[in-house]
């Protein structure tokens, strides 16, 4: 069984470590905040100028001056701070954020990522995505392994306009956990019940398959 969006987020949440400052992109990455492992503390950075983003507000707590980068109303945790966009991207570009989780249309074995533009469709802009992929030391990409037509999105070379080059390190899809090493994706884990053959069939990039590929553990 391929993973649901929530399960992808759940698996990525296992990569969180105590004391991490984390930036979560829009979509599946946002869900990661729901699965913080017990016993650790992390702070979420929102690039519009908030470190210490909390859950959505109650109806009484809604504040138009307190939003996240997706323009949703949010709350701030105790110990949070606010700052300008320039300060926010100094944190990001300067490599101070420990982990960035973002979505993508395609990734390739050169570490390139395409996530902001599909030619022929309306261009809405890259927002902070190019800065995030250029600045983060540690990037996890959350995405579907293949499109609905069964075409791989884990490629030898991206076909869409790039968001950044040579920056992808780890990819969590609905089928597998992949790590990029020396220009090749290593198959680290597979989704429960998904065969190695199926993953291979839906991966266009060069894939290194170890003798033993464990199933992901999704229980907290």
């Amino acid at each position: 069984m391929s993973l649901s969006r929530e399960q992808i987020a759940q698996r990525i949440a296992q990569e969180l470590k105590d004391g991490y400052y984390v930036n979560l992109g829009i979509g599946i990455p946002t869900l990661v905040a729901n699965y913080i492992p017990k016993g650790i503390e992390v702070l979420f950075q929102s690039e519009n100028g908030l470190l210490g983003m909390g859950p959505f507000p109650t109806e009484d707590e809604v504040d138009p001056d307190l939003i996240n980068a997706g323009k949703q109303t949010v709350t701030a945790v105790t110990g949070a701070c606010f700052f300008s966009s320039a300060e926010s991207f100094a944190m990001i570009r300067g490599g101070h954020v420990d982990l960035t989780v973002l979505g993508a249309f395609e990734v390739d074995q050169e570490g390139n990522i395409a996530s902001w533009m599909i030619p022929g469709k309306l261009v809405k802009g890259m927002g902070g995505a190019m800065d995030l992929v250029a600045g983060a030391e540690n990037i996890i990409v959350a995405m579907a392994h293949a499109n609905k037509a069964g075409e791989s999105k884990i490629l030898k070379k991206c076909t869409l306009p790039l968001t950044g080059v040579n920056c992808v390190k780890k990819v969590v899809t609905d089928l597998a956990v992949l790590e990029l090493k020396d220009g090749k994706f290593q198959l680290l884990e597979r989704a429960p019940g998904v065969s190695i053959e199926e993953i291979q069939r839906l991966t266009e990039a060069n894939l290194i398959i170890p003798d033993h590929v464990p199933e992901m553990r999704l229980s907290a």
Partner: protein
Amino acid sequence: MAAKLEGSSPRKGFNKVVSTYQEALAGFADGMTVMVGGFGLCGIPEGLIKTVSEMGVKNLTCISNNAGVDGFGLGLWLEHRQIKTMIASYVGENALFEQLFLSGEMQVILTPQGTLAEKIRAGGAGIPAFYTATGYGTVVAEGKDTREFNGRMYVLEESLRADFSLIRAWKADTMGNLIYRKTAMNFNPMMAAAGKITVAEVEEIVQPGELNPEHIHTPGIYVDRVIQGTFEKRIEQRTTR
């Protein structure tokens, strides 16, 4: 910097408070470059934006992270076809924008958000250009100088300045010292410094000494005019738990 005062109303000393939007925007003219603070609809100078739409000035180069929504914020300038060139990082959520962009009526320069923030910061700080790794190897770097530092490639990005910066703050004193509220700060502080004439629309104006000097976000030296605004504070994505 006598030129900074051109077009503004007579004033005494460091009192920067103006009482009408017309005074606040005196000198604002066709073909100017204008920065507008805010992230989405959060932290935008609502009254100043509305007044510019009513003034009917045209051919503006507008620098703002986003372009408002249909009928509100910078969406009003789109409705009145006032923008010739838009420099922004993300312009979704706006059907009219799409139409003006696709028809070629308006030029759009999409800029990564962090690069946009730094271009404005650098402009205000007197730095003409800087290198950043953001956008290297992408369309953003096309036609720009690139250079290697410590084994990594960087793109040369030029800074931005504006004839007018229209910003929003929470509290101001009459001397133009500003404090922002929560994430309504966003692009406002850098734009304050990058405008030849900076107009701050604020929620509350107090006397000098009432704001703690240690808590000032934007020093008054960057601010030319302060106006008391009234704000609808529309929410784009009301999400609750």
